[in-house]
């Protein structure tokens, strides 16, 4: 089996960032040609060569189920799967690989979290969310809350479009059993002060669940330093394949939690009357996992972990500044959320006065610019920001000045034709 996680580090050297080299590690750019300006990275990132090669190699040359067969091919698949888990654990800064559960993505991971934590909830308990959540970090808690009789509360926005964490004291009490928050808004790009949430949760013995889908593509993490208890992210947003993601669960907590789904591979013993369950992470991985996508995820994060992240952050921030500066010059454009670059990921949502976001995105497509229009599965946040929907441009490590300039030129044309 090829090892896509090694041998492809030439793109970002310690001497500085070679963006053209980085783009060369993503096959789509050669396939699409120069008039392709992909700025929908918050929805999905493009797949890197390391992940694509690993996926194809597994599915065409090394495919077997994991955790079962004793023949060589199956044994190698199991070994590769567990190695991918270890690489994901490394990217997250987890203490042990067994703390990482392979899921189909962030939505699966957060549903798993809500379902298993629901067993600890009682009527009258409270689940604290924030109004900046993606629907996948709202709806699972509503379902869990309904099952347990627990109440949902939410941290509101402050004037500047960031979360008003000064309200935490009033919102967190002994009734609070779960705090679930995004690490980075998928609409405004604002980063959440997870440390502050962790402190508040810890003070009342609540569990802190973090949706890391938008933060994970921007460099390796340290979940232990963050102070959370569970952390979810998706493979397809970190330049791997669709179909795999991960949920990190702090080891001691994972040991206490009941299974989510039942089936093969998550048991110790099954009788017709009852079952006992495997220890984590297998307890939470019923059935055949997404093996190929998980291996691709392992390859992607191993490749990412070797890049020069200070240089990439500087590059992403420079593009964000160029974008924000350009947007400010466009007539009738309104930014949603914070207007500065402090503590935010490189993504921006905005409205063009008098033009529907879908119409903006459709016309931008004519310029080869890929952006997202809609509520981005964050209707409560849009409501708090006073909008129904917005246009979102989201930057990844492979974007360059030409992408930003094409977007700005396209927006000028949108205003000229439709505003």
């Amino acid at each position, binding site marked *: 089996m090829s090892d896509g996680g090694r041998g492809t580090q030439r793109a970002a050297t310690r001497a500085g960032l070679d963006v053209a080299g980085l783009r060369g590690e993503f096959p789509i750019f050669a396939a699409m040609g120069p008039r392709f300006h992909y700025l929908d990275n918050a929805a999905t990132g493009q797949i890197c060569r390391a992940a694509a090669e690993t996926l194809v190699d597994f599915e065409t040359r090394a495919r077997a189920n994991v955790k079962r067969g004793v023949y060589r091919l199956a044994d190698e698949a199991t070994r590769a799967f567990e190695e991918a888990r270890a690489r994901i654990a490394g990217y997250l800064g987890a203490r042990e690989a067994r703390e990482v559960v392979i899921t189909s993505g962030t939505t699966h991971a957060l549903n798993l979290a809500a379902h298993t934590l629901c067993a600890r909830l009682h009527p009258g308990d409270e689940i604290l969310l924030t109004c900046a959540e993606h629907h996948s970090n709202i709806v699972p808690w509503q379902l869990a809350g309904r099952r347990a009789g627990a109440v949902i509360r939410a941290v509101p926005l402050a004037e500047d479009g960031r979360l008003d964490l000064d309200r935490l004291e009033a919102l967190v009490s002994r009734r609070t059993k779960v705090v679930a928050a995004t690490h980075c808004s998928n609409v405004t790009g604002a980063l959440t002060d997870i440390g502050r949430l962790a402190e508040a949760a810890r003070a009342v013995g609540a569990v802190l669940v973090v949706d890391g889908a938008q933060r994970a593509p921007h460099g390796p993490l340290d979940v232990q330093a963050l102070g959370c208890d569970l952390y979810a992210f998706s493979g397809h947003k970190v330049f791997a394949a669709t179909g795999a993601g991960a949920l990190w669960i702090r080891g001691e907590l994972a040991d206490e939690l009941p299974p989510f789904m039942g089936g093969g591979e998550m048991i110790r013993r099954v009788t017709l009357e009852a079952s006992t369950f495997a220890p984590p992470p297998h307890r939470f991985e019923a059935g055949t996992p997404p093996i190929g996508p998980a291996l691709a995820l392992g390859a992607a994060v191993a490749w990412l972990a070797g890049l020069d992240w200070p240089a990439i952050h500087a590059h992403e921030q420079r593009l964000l500044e160029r974008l924000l500066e350009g947007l400010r010059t466009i007539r009738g454009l309104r930014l949603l959320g914070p207007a500065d670059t402090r503590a935010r990921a490189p993504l921006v949502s905005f409205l063009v006065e008098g033009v*529907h*976001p*879908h*119409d903006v995105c*459709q*016309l*931008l*497509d*004519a310029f080869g610019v890929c952006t997202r*229009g*809609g*509520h981005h599965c964050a*209707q409560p946040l*849009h409501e708090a920001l006073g909008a*129904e*929907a917005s246009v979102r441009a989201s930057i990844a490590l492979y974007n360059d000045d030409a992408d930003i300039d094409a977007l700005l030129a396209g927006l000028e044309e949108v205003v000229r*034709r*439709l505003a």
Partner: protein
Amino acid sequence: MSAELYHRAIVETAKETAEAARLPAPDVTVEEDNPLCGDRIVLDLLFRDGRVAAVGHKTRGCLLTRAAAAVLARRVPGCAASDLFRAIASLQDLLEGRDGSPSWPELAMFAPVRAVKSRHECVLLPFRALERALASVPPAAERKP
């Protein structure tokens, strides 16, 4: 392909929705949302002698949704339910590229949308509302003189 959607007929027709208003005492009212973007139409119908006597609506949406709502508001008065179901089917045929001409000639303005699958729902939103409204109208209201 994307730019072709925004030809003059669609842009001009969409402007008509700015003047649209709800009916004061409709026989039936439905709300229809586009779950992708939160666009919404509230549609009112009033019946007389088995036909739609008046239509009112409030539409919040993109140019395609608003143009479709404007065509609907223009054409629906005077129609029987059977005419309207035929018109809805003809619009779906147009978007799916099936043979036949649309019941109302101006629906042809949406032909360029055929190539952009993700925007079909934008055009169909007002017609989905109409379909639900027709299905939920009380029989007594439809028969009233």
